[in-house]
């Protein structure tokens, strides 16, 4: 079996059996004490409960000595499972190839938070590391008993515990526990999700001893994908399954008042599922379900158009009363007083539109309800939370719901996957058959939760010598958690909202993550109410690096504006105020690799229609530091921007797999360029009008940068932080700064589409 990430066809028990005979328990479950008394320490034939405080919830040694690692997060395509396998293999002293990582199945993993905030290694990997270290400690102790040699005189090579002085005195992991379960308690912090942490007594290895961690081990999930042997969640089928499509209103907020079932009676097996605002159709065949969804006559309530005109969006944000305000961290000094003493004030305002996840395929989920038990296949980022959501909406105990994470058609945050799982659950209950629901493209783009639109006001106070004496930065926009980051609560999903549950919109935004040491400094955010409170196609939530690109587009563009106003080089200005040594190091590394020439912007003396520029931006993100330099060409005649090259310096502490980071950074840059140059959710007063790839264009391969040069800075002594998102956030500012360098014109609104840029240049 080469597909490490899959667990749909192998239950944990069958897997343990697959490697050899499962030792059958005799009588009552073996307790720790009795096992020890029997000289068979810490191995149980009956699986301990799947709880975070059990070692068996993370690690199992199969009968053939291979290792199964059960991971409560999942890989969204960046190869996370390889890195987790490396960590587990490293701590256990087994070959990398003998570790299989099973991800995101609620029946075999505990809730480690799912794919979330680039914490796959930072928090998920940290837990797998201590669990694997504890497993090794326990196995060595068992070997000490068996061999009659003290544990500190033993070592492990490739899963064989042996005396340091005599390798022939040995016993394998397989012989010690293979096919049985660890029965070892961990010291769990009683938290679920990302902060879950449950170490044992063992200390993980000193990074100096690492042999597997840090290596560019390749992904084994590529071959099944290119040979079409991979099952996506869209591909799962079960006997008796029917196909479904959902029907959304043409005016957001409208609900069906009359549904004419006769209008689809010519379509074989097509049936309507209608409850309040929830409206879907099912049919035995997929094309019939699609036809029925298009053909069904529905009379909708006369909802008032809920949105402002697109042109009025930023004015709406400016004038709306804040629902919540936060200053983060605490204000340094006294900003307002400092501004009163300013010799000069520089200020600017930036705007960022709603953006859509627009995953490659619209979300899909299959739900089967049988004998009071629910099985859901979903590409969700958070299967354990979806389990809770399905249990809530179907009014069933969570224990009766099993969510099997199966790779979906792309995911970059809280996309439409959780909505699809919940809709499919409601449909499956209504029709009494397994239901496979896939949204249509116009729903995948038009009705996914959106990255929030926002405005950002920045100002600095300068003294007479041009020193920055105060900095004030305020973001104001829609909440990043109007609907929460997972589907655990029906009120955060379209199914719950269309079925009329009580609403609970959350508030959250963020502040720039950097280390500019200004004596007086205030970074703050304000959130405003959603434009439509229920079942809105503009409800907002997490889109890759939630609100990071927005905030840092503004904050890092603004730093450039200040540098230019002072006639200073953009890097020299930053380094003058940055206090964090790792921040300074990534900036210097990017500058050196890109061959940055110290001079102020703009780059004067360029003539002709095509001009070129370079721009720098940097940011932190939960411990990771990233700096990047964009090199762009601007065509003054038509406003077209071509991003020729990105140079990225990336420091996320210890590198587990350099190739994995490099590919992840490349994806972030291309997606970031796309969001910067093209992406804007368009809407009318009635509804979202970005409904496909024509109306929501993304970067084309003809526009792709020629080169993305990635410099990785390794700090083995610093625990790994994330790489999944940090390199998303400075992209827009680096491009904006490069455009300014090329043209002397500052673009303060995303996207930098040709018409926007041309208008700005003229």
């Amino acid at each position: 079996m080469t597909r490490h990430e899959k667990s749909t066809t192998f239950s944990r028990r069958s897997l343990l059996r697959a490697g050899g005979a499962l030792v059958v328990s005799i009588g009552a479950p073996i307790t720790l004490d009795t096992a020890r008394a029997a000289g068979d320490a810490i191995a149980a034939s009956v699986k301990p409960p799947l709880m975070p405080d059990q070692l068996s919830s993370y690690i199992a040694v199969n009968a053939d000595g291979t290792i199964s690692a059960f991971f409560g997060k999942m890989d969204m395509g960046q190869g996370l499972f390889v890195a987790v396998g490396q960590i587990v293999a490293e701590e256990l002293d087994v070959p990398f190839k003998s570790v299989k990582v099973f991800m995101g199945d609620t029946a075999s993993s505990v809730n480690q938070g799912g794919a979330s905030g680039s914490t796959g290694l930072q928090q998920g990997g940290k837990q797998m590391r201590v669990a694997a270290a504890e497993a090794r400690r326990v196995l060595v102790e068992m070997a000490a008993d068996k061999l009659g040699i003290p544990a500190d005189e033993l070592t492990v090579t490739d899963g064989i515990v042996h005396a340091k002085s005599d390798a022939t005195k040995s016993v394998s992991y397989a012989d010690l526990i293979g096919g049985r379960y660890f029965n070892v308690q961990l010291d769990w912090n009683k938290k679920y999700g990302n902060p879950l942490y449950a170490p044992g007594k063992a200390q993980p290895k000193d990074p100096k001893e690492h042999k597997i961690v840090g290596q560019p081990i390749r992904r084994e999930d590529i071959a099944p994908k290119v040979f079409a042997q991979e099952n996506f969640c869209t591909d799962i089928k079960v006997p008796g399954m029917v196909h479904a499509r959902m029907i959304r209103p043409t005016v957001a907020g409208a609900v069906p008042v009359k549904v004419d079932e006769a209008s689809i009676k010519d379509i074989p097996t097509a049936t309507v599922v209608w409850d309040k605002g929830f409206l879907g159709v099912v049919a035995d065949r997929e094309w019939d379900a699609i036809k029925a969804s298009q053909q069904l006559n529905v009379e909708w309530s006369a909802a008032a158009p809920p949105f402002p005109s697109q042109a009025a969006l930023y004015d709406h944000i400016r004038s709306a009363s804040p629902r919540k305000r936060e200053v983060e961290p605490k204000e340094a000094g006294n900003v307002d007083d400092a501004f009163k003493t300013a010799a000069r004030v520089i200020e600017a305002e930036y705007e960022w539109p709603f953006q859509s996840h627009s995953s490659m395929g619209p979300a899909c989920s299959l739900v089967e309800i049988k004998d009071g038990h629910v099985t859901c296949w979903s590409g969700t980022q958070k299967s354990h939370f979806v389990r809770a959501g399905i249990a809530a909406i179907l009014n069933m105990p969570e224990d009766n719901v099993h969510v099997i994470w199966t790779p979906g058609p792309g995911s970059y945050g809280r996309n439409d996957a959780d909505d699809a799982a919940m809709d499919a659950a409601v449909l499956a209950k209504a029709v009494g058959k397994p239901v496979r629901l896939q949204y249509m493209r116009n729903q995948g783009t038009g009705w996914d939760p959106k990255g929030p639109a926002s405005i950002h006001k920045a100002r600095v106070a300068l003294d007479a010598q041009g020193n920055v004496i105060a900095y004030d930065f305020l973001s104001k926009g829609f909440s990043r958690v109007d609907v929460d980051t997972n589907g655990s609560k029906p009120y955060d999903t379209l199914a719950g909202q269309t079925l009329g549950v009580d609403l609970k919109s959350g508030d959250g935004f963020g502040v720039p993550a950097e280390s500019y040491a200004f004596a007086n400094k205030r970074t703050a955010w304000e959130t405003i109410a959603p434009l439509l409170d229920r079942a809105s196609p503009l409800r907002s939530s997490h889109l890759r690096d939630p609100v990071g690109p927005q905030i840092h587009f503004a904050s890092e563009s603004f730093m450039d504006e200040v540098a230019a106003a002072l006639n200073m080089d953009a890097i020299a200005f930053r380094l003058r105020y940055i206090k964090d040594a790792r921040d300074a190091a990534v900036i210097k590394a990017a500058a050196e690799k890109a061959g940055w020439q110290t001079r102020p912007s703009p780059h004067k003396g360029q003539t002709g229609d095509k001009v070129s520029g370079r721009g720098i931006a940097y940011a932190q993100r939960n411990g990771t530091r990233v700096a990047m330099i964009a090199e762009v060409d601007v065509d003054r005649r038509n406003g077209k921007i071509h991003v020729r090259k990105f140079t990225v310096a990336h420091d996320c502490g210890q590198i587990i797999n350099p190739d994995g980071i490099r590919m992840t950074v490349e994806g972030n840059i291309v997606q970031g360029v796309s969001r910067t140059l093209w992406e804007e959710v368009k809407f009318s007063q009635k509804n979202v009008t970005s409904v496909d790839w024509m109306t929501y264009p993304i970067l084309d391969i003809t526009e792709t940068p020629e080169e993305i040069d990635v410099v990785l800075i390794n700090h083995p002594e610093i625990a790994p932080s994330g790489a999944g998102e940090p390199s998303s956030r400075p992209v827009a500012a680096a491009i904006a700064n490069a455009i300014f360098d090329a043209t002397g014109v500052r673009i303060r609104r995303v996207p930098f589409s040709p018409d926007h840029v041309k208008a700005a240049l003229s």
Partner: protein
Amino acid sequence: MDQRFTLKVNGKNRTVEADPDTPLLYVLRNDIGLNNPHFGCGLAQCGACTVHFNGQPIRSCVTPVSAVGDGKILTLAGLGTPEKPHPLQKAYIEEEVPQCGYCINGWIMTAAAFLRDKKKPTDAEIRSALEGLKCRCGTHVAILRAVKRAAAMMG
């Protein structure tokens, strides 16, 4: 009304009964059991459903099954196998291109037809041949590396 169609898919005759308007995509996926072409848009805008029809890439999501006739359909699964991979499949593995991987039918099937007809293409020619295909994970630079690697293998 359903009609009976015999399709030539990956070198085999496959008989199905379907509404003539049914897009080939659903017939391949649900009636023939070939999951590799994916539903991405249903609008011929993204390429996730791409298959070859008599050697040329087409978007199966907008091709009615009744329009296929006795034309030869080739899907990603028929392009190569682990034992006998197409150079593009080999290059995709060597360059570790896919992230989510949902888009790859479009890129590989389109590039396969292009590289068959165009030896030693330039970077600009490759980009132009792949214009319009979508990849939401942003693997574009890896795709270009892989297509160039495959082009080198194909001489």
